[in-house]
């Protein structure tokens, strides 16, 4: 993958310096993003240095102090925005219980892309959605993998029980990200990692960046696992609707199969994520309960924002 297209003066300067003039990266200090697109693509690219990197950027820049400093500034802005949205919509986090957590997710009301795909979307709209979902699904489960060495034994083992399934129980042909890549290919789309990053609106980038923010910062482990649990708890039923929608518009079975797999897998994963993973984390560290709900709310709210954006564009 090459560096994405810049979207403003910050990302323009940053990507040029990363590619060609890393000695001058200090000049990024004090630069501010022009708007959300500029900030989110810059942060996404900085995070990407710790995933697969870019062919046109030296691997040695991953921990360059000026890039780490810029990443930190962009992360503060994102975390503040997520916390402010949580305060405005939820206020105080509810008390933790597995049933209370499931209710918190079920009671969250927002527009549903799954319902639209199920009944109304045409094939082009579905393909648009698959391109945008590829930004995450081609690194599915990776943002949570950063957490593993940061947890105590019980929570670590519980998380790995779920992650082992995400990663195909050791079989690369069953890896969830690989199932999605084969589905994309069957639809005539590129299965290449990051292929559609330039198509992604700020809402998709923010949704992806929030997962990495939570996963890469140990202090946000509660939010990371709350996000995971809400993601899993809102996946089974929507995945079935999406699979039916994909078949309705005549897309290949390989992409519907990815969603079929998530109907069944996520019916397991939601129980594990809520009961054994978040449950054990909060038994050991009860003060993280508020962050678990911050992560859960952020997952649901960021998906609402993506849905508003796409449904709005499609209705126009």
């Amino acid at each position: 993958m090459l560096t994405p297209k810049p979207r403003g003066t910050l990302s323009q300067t940053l990507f040029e310096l990363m590619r060609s003039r890393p000695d001058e990266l200090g000049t990024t200090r004090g630069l501010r993003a022009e708007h959300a697109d500029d900030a989110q693509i810059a942060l996404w690219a900085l995070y990407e240095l710790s995933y697969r990197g870019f062919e046109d950027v030296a691997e040695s820049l991953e921990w360059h102090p000026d890039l780490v400093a810029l990443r930190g500034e962009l992360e503060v802005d994102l975390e503040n925005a997520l916390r402010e949205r949580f305060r405005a919509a939820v206020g105080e986090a509810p008390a933790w219980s597995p049933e209370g957590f499931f209710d918190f997710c079920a009671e969250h009301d927002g527009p549903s892309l799954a319902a639209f795909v199920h009944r109304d979307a045409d094939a082009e709209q579905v393909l648009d959605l698959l391109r945008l979902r590829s930004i995450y699904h081609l690194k599915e489960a990776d943002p949570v993998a950063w957490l593993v060495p940061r947890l105590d034994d019980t929570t670590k083992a519980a998380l790995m029980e779920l992650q082992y399934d995400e990663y195909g129980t050791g079989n690369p042909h069953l890896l969830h990200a690989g199932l999605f890549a084969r589905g994309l290919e069957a639809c005539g789309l590129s299965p290449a990692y990051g292929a559609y990053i330039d198509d992604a609106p700020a809402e998709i980038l923010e949704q992806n960046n929030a997962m990495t923010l939570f996963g890469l910062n140990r202090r946000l482990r509660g939010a990371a696992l709350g996000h995971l649990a809400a993601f899993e708890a809102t996946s089974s039923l929507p995945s079935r609707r999406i699979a039916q929608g994909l078949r309705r518009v005549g897309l290949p079975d390989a992409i519907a199969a990815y969603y079929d797999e998530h109907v069944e897998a996520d019916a397991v994963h939601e129980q594990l994520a809520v009961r054994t993973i978040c449950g054990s984390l909060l038994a050991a560290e009860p003060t993280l309960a508020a962050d678990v709900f911050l992560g859960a709310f952020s997952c649901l709210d960021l998906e609402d924002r993506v849905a508003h954006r796409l449904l709005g564009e499609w209705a126009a």
Partner: protein
Amino acid sequence: MTASTSSDHPDVIICPGGPLLLRGEHVVQDEQGLAHRTTRPVSAVCRCGKTSTSPWCDGTHKVIPARNRP
């Protein structure tokens, strides 16, 4: 007590209002008498009777009235 029989890491977990989780490899017989082998590290067996992927849970228990959940 071995790790696999430890009370804080059970082989079977009954989820209130939801499925029954099975750790490890098992063969589950459905209502029609058909045998289904588990394929994942943990499997969720439907307890509400409304699943479309019997014998496995598909999350449908969440959309039926709470009083009808297992």
